């Protein structure tokens, strides 16, 4: 069965702190894709990153970075020097060719205080 676990339900930090959001996934498929989405208070889900199972290179985009480790089935997301605008719910998701459906984690609510 496919599953995505985001054990952190809520995280609070002060601006400029670094914060890491954890994502652990389960799948028996060898080919799969992992995603992160951001859901600000407005509600729309904003796509952040898509990573396939054959590419374990870490990725950095501005203040955002992602650490993909197949050995621990984790795809963690780090925000460096957090800002108030980063306050949102962040979802990790998984899809495989066998399931054909995005499986979402329950989300982590990040609150960044000034």
């Amino acid at each position, binding site marked *: 069965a496919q599953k995505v676990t985001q054990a952190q339900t809520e995280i609070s930090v002060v601006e400029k702190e670094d914060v890491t959001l954890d994502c652990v996934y389960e799948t028996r498929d060898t080919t799969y894709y992992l995603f992160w989405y951001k859901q600000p208070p407005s*509600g*729309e889900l904003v*796509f952040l990153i898509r990573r396939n199972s054959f590419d374990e290179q870490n990725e950095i985009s501005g203040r955002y970075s992602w650490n993909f480790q197949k050995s621990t089935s984790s795809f963690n997301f780090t925000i460096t020097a957090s800002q108030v605008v980063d306050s949102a719910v962040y979802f990790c998701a998984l899809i*495989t*060719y066998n399931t054909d459906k*995005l499986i*979402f984690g329950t*989300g982590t609510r990040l609150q960044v205080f000034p």
Partner: protein
Amino acid sequence: SQTIHQWPATLVQPVGSPLSLECTVEGTSNPNLYWYRQAAGRGLQLLFYSVGIGQISSEVPQNLSASRPQDRQFILSSKKLLLSDSGFYLCACGQAAATDTQYFGPGTRLTVL
């Protein structure tokens, strides 16, 4: 890149009333389209997806239905709303492969009273 429109943005409906939510997509052709529901404080649940006009797959049996009358139009309907239908409804769009990135619309917040 594609743009996804949803309306209405918010809706308050009495129990037992009908429902019609619309999603339209610009900037792409022959997309896969999806309807998700997010209950308050919870994750996303896939309701329906469509790979083409008139082709609908249902993921969760309930009193909702979906239709795709045009390539870039996806409609979510109900004949009689239940209290449990309250939630945030999101339409998403992806390319031909199911594993492609799904992009989401702004959502419709439905409250059933």
